[in-house]
């Protein structure tokens, strides 16, 4: 008969107080598990969001704002950068171009039924990857194409949230302070593809062809009204082609341009789409001259030269046109600086709960020592050594802690299972209840150490039990 069995029988004999003690441990452990799992999943999800590219290039200002806006669609990017910068980077006419493998432009500032709308190019889903080099795949339909100016692709959750299916048409509405409520019912985009879930913020966005987007009147929604009022006269003065450059009531020249050329000048669109900017068409060139993008996602040639992303960022940041931010670094800084602290505080509180529950073990066992002394004396009279009865108490303490810990792990993951759908709905972070973290294994030695510490005092009391007195006191 092992010490474990002797200790287990003792626990069984005091079933209710033992169960309550283990339950209190379980509650603490459940909190620890929930904090660990949710933090780990959040951290991974944050990092996932920035997968597939090395740099984000955007207007000068806060790198954090640029990253939050571009990666997570959380902040409203106020400033934009000229399309020309993208063009030069993409076509090798910028000094930093040598370090660039792929550059993807994105325009934001629009939404549909609360779902962010991102205007971009088809390479977004062919050249970029996510989460450890995984390629984007379509659950239904296909990627949008250059010659489909009003084609769009929906993220998995975005399609559900916005009620969009293949073939559905929708008109983005400008969001943000610059162009509140400006819609484009006359320029509907059609869903041609729905992405498979990626576990990234892209799941909750709609992606439209940038060509079609630039034909919308409020494509410059990212600009402040002050900036636009300052820019508009300037544009008028610079504009060589009056029909395209007479903005009306907030509608920009591209809007009219779109009306004018929609379905008529497909050749021009194809040229735009293929980035043919060699000056063959003055109209297009002028058109693009006034275009602006919110940001650019850059894949550097890091596989060829590891330090190139840093050099590229430095080259961009030295200039006055734009800033380059490394999303992984910015997100890591944000996560460690803010979320990390919150997690630490939660973790400390949860560990304190476990420690308090551990003291509950001490109180529970110690309070029962008057009953136990007689049993200990019987064991000693049967030949048990002092160290044996001491070990029985410690083992009992460890069993209570580990039993409570196992209960806590189940409770914690159950809690995650219950909260998971709500977390996924609100944050797009999918947390599975069976998602175990390696760090949870620390709980096992941690609980054993805690149980040994709190069990030590009653174990010493057991060790010191006077056998003769305890036997005669009740005998």
């Amino acid at each position, binding site marked *: *008969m092992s010490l474990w069995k002797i200790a287990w029988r003792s626990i*069984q004999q005091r079933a209710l107080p033992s169960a309550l003690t283990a339950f209190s441990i379980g509650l603490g452990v459940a909190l620890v598990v929930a904090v660990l799992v949710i933090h780990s999943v959040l951290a991974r999800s944050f990092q996932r969001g920035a997968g597939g590219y090395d740099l984000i290039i955007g207007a000068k200002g806060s790198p954090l704002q640029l990253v939050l806006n571009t990666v997570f669609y959380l902040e409203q990017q106020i400033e934009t950068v000229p399309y020309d910068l993208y063009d030069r980077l993409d076509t090798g006419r910028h000094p930093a171009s040598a370090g660039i493998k792929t550059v993807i432009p994105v325009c934001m500032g629009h939404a549909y039924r609360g779902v962010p709308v991102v205007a971009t190019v088809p390479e977004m889903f062919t050249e970029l990857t996510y989460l450890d080099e995984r390629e984007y795949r379509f659950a239904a339909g296909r990627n949008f194409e250059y010659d489909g100016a009003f084609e769009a692709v929906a993220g998995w959750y975005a399609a559900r949230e916005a009620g969009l299916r293949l073939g559905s048409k929708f008109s983005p509405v400008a969001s943000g302070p610059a162009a509140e409520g400006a819609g484009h019912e006359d320029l509907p985009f059609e869903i041609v593809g729905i992405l498979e879930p990626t576990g990234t913020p892209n799941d909750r966005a709609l992606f439209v062809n940038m060509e079609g987007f630039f034909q919308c009147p409020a494509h410059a929604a990212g600009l402040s009204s002050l900036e636009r009022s300052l820019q508009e006269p300037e544009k008028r003065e610079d504009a060589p082609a009056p029909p395209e450059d007479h903005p009306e009531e907030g509608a920009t020249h591209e809007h009219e341009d779109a009306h004018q050329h929609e379905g008529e000048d497909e050749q021009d669109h194809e040229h735009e789409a293929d980035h043919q900017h060699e000056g063959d068409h003055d109209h297009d060139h002028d058109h693009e001259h006034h275009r602006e993008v919110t940001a650019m996602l850059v894949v550097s040639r890091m596989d060829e030269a590891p330090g190139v992303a840093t050099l590229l960022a430095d080259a961009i940041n030295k200039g006055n046109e734009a800033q380059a931010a490394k999303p992984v670094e910015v997100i890591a800084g944000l996560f460690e600086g803010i979320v990390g602290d919150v997690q630490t505080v939660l973790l400390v509180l949860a560990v304190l709960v476990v420690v308090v529950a551990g003291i509950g073990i001490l109180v529970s066992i110690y309070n029962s020592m008057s009953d136990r002394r007689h049993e200990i004396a019987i064991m000693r*009279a*049967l*030949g048990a050594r002092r160290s*044996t009865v001491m070990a029985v108490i410690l083992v009992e303490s460890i069993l209570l802690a580990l039993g409570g810990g196992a209960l806590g792990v189940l409770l914690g993951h159950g809690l995650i299972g219950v909260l998971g759908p709500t977390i996924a709905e609100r944050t797009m972070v999918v947390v599975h209840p069976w998602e175990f973290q390696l760090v949870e294994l620390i709980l096992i030695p941690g609980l054993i150490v805690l149980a040994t510490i709190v069990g030590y005092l009653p174990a010493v009391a057991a060790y010191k039990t006077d056998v003769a007195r305890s036997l005669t006191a009740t*005998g």
Partner: protein
Amino acid sequence: MLQLTDVKKSFTLPDGAELPVLDIPQWYVGAGEQVVVVGRSGCGKTTLLHVIAGISRPDSGRVRIDDWEITLFTEAESDRFRADRIGYVFQTFNLLPGFTALENVLLAMRFTGKPTDRGRARELLERVGLGHRIKHRPPMLSVGEQQRVAVARALANKPKILLADEPTANIDSGNQQQVLDLLSEACREEKVALVLVTHSPEVARQFERIDRLEEINRVVESTAKP
């Protein structure tokens, strides 16, 4: 087999005064012999058994069992010796309530450091008439049955000597005889010396050798005199 020589034991009272309990110049029990020690309550019978079992150390003197002088043992050696060679039946049975009858017997084997012999434990319980109740816990057994489990437990490790402290004091008369017969027969079969202490003349009469504590213990003798 069991020999006590000049054994003295006293307790310190709360006021600091010493209360002598045992003063035994010589006392001997032979191998396989059955001895009943009779004395009134509080005269030191239990203390005598505790000293023989090594549960209490005498203030002075020697306790010898076979070739071992247990008063020279360390506490750990004394514990192991008690587990291996001494069986103990208590007045209040002292079964562990959380364990089944079988587990109570096995528990005694556990402390010898040798592998537990489940077969012998079952056999002993069958011998005391409880083969059908081995999985019952003490609260589910009658007092007579509990004491029979205690006898089986005391015999578990094939002891050299079995110490029984008022084994029938808490059981009804019907069960008293059954337990006494069981103790006597089992010790005879197992060739175990039996030292049974009691205050009951009826119990004492059933044994051939009856030692009065006042005859072997000077303390009792001295306090008994006016």
